[in-house]
């Protein structure tokens, strides 16, 4: 007698074993491996995003550094022109005398007022900068009005810091005739024009004022 039932039972057992084995592998795969992979992929994506983000920040930083370098250069240029720091009146007197001679100003009388400090406030916020400002009044006489004009222009360029002209007066004091022009050409003669000038001589303080001052 053939034990077909036993054979069939063995088949069922084999099938069940295969099913359990398959389910175990599938469960291991879907419950452990795939979530683990997904987790690592997420972390990798996050790290990748982080790298991209830092690279973008580095690019921004490079651009910022370039802007700052440009601004530092401008600042150094201004500092070289004496726009930052104290005003040296002795230097100013030397420059004025030199310009007077250079531009044939026969008579120069000037007065440099005491330094005023002007606080420049920010439109919003409480920070500020301080500007040193000296008012200079000049009276001068010369032979030609172009001498006075050139003197004024040279003064504007020559004084350290920044010079703002607030008032200019020029007037002919006598009409030139042939004899006078001949005397002028020989280095003599009397002045033909006189003028007065008011300027603001300005430079920044190199250390900031305390806030609100």
């Amino acid at each position, binding site marked *: 007698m053939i034990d077909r039932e036993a054979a069939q039972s063995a088949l069922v057992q084999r099938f069940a074993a295969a099913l359990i084995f398959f389910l175990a592998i599938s469960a291991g795969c879907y419950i452990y491996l795939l979530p683990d992979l997904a987790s690592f992929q997420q972390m*990798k994506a996050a790290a990748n995003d982080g790298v991209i983000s830092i690279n973008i920040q580095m690019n921004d930083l490079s651009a910022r550094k370039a802007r700052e370098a440009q601004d530092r250069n401008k600042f150094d240029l201004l500092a070289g022109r004496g726009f930052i720091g104290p005003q040296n009146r002795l230097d100013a007197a030397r420059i004025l005398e030199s310009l007077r001679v250079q531009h044939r100003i026969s008579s120069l009388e000037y007065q440099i007022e005491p330094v005023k400090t002007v606080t420049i406030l920010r439109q919003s916020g409480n920070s500020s900068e301080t500007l040193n400002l000296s008012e200079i009044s000049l009276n001068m006489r010369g032979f030609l009005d172009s001498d006075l*004009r050139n003197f004024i222009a040279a003064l504007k360029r020559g004084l350290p810091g920044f010079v703002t002209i607030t008032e200019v007066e020029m007037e*002919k004091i006598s009409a030139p005739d042939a004899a006078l022009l001949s005397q002028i050409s020989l280095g003599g003669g009397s002045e033909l024009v006189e003028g007065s000038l008011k300027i603001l001589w300005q430079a920044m303080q190199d250390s900031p004022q305390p806030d609100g001052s």
Partner: protein
Amino acid sequence: MPSLTDIEGIAQRLFALKRFVLMIGDTGALIARLSGSRIVSHQFLTGTIEENIRQAKLALSEFPKYPVVMLYDVLGQTYRRDRLPPVSLLDRPKILARKLDSLFPGAELKGGMQLGRSTGEIRGFDYLFASIAASPEITEWQSVLSQIENPACDIRLLPVESVKLLQQIMHAGNGKLSKPNPWNILITHHRTGGFRQIVTRDGGLAIARMTASSAAIESPAEIAGLLRREIGATIDYITRLGFDRTAGLDAIFIGRSDISAALKNVQLPVRKLTVYTPAEAESLAGISGARDDSGHFADLLHAAWGASRIIPALSVWALNLRQARSRVLAYVWGARALAAASLAAILYSANIYWEIQRTEAEYLQLESTRAALQQRYDEEVSKLDSGPMPIARMRDIIAIQAQLQNADIDLNSLYTVINSALSGNVRLHALDIEIDPPELALAPVQDPPLPADESAETPPVEVGIVLNLDLSSFRDAELAIAEADRMIQALRLALPGMKIKILRQPLRILPEETLTVKPGENVLTISGEDRIAKIELTGRLK
């Protein structure tokens, strides 16, 4: 598109199912071992039935795991064509079983095959029902199945299964493009029976007949004569089924070559006769190993064809046994499929594990890159404000200088404008310029900061200019006044943004002045201090 037969053939070659076929005829039996559609070994059993059964058991016991397909080619086969009502797929087996019980009461081996939807007004499905009449021999052969260790696989009928063999040989022999005759007959010579005739109509079984071999008829001519008569009788039968004698019948004979030659000579009552030896037929049918020792008989060809089919055309095995076998097969193939799926799952898991390792390594690499970049970034940021003065303050100072620069008036260009407005008859006696510099202010902090000089707005600069013109070259007051007016117009054109008005004319003709003329005085002749005109310009130069 591949047919079901093609797909079955592919599956046969792919899986090469190993099984036994036990073909039972009226005068003997055949046992053959198959691998797919290839006969590996065979044995004709032509002794007494007891001896045949003993030998069959012996052969089967060599490979007890191989399943057995029984293929009956006996005389006692009954076929009926009938209709089943259109019931659902789930109910159909029950209805079929009931129909079989009513058609073949008491028969153990019976079954049916669906032919298609019924034609006509009554809906339903046409079925071909078949059974094998019970006999002592059949009972004895059936009992073998319960005595052997090999599992029974199926019980089939040779004529029904070989319908497709006939189609296959016809297609392979004639080519699929030629138009097939609706009526065809396959005549094969069997060692286990005699001459089997299978007649098909439109690819379905029409009738099947068996002509027993007789020891008294041996010569090919006599056999051919016998077959001529038998085929004539077959044609008489099928004429009742609608066969048109004028259309004719295409016949294929598979058997001895001398009988084939004799058949050609006797002029069979068929339209076309094609003869093959069993060796030729097996190559056309895609079967191998179907040649017996003599090379005369087609038993092996039928056995290989009928038993190698995975899906039988018609099974006469009891439904419950078929279902039990299906369960066993489901377990076997299910376990195999699960084993294959497990292997695939292991490979998939290994692939995921490898992917995890790779992803983890990439993640760690990226993380270290990110940390290094972050450190570099922090270092660069810390260097940014490391100069002697904060950059924000530098920008403020630059902005203030830019405001001063923007508010600055270029006196040279102003002199040029005034000069160009002066004519040759007029001299500038005096020039007064008053400039009201604007107030300075720092712009709000921007993020990101604008370039320092761009953030500086241009403040309006108010200017007041007074020109004293010497008109002493004019003697005529009217001309001098006209010259002063011309000068005003010229200045207005040159400085359109400024208000220009005359403060003094060579004559006191302005509305706010008092004009006094003494007797004898020519008012239109000017001299001395009267030769002066004053023009005032006010407004914004920037």
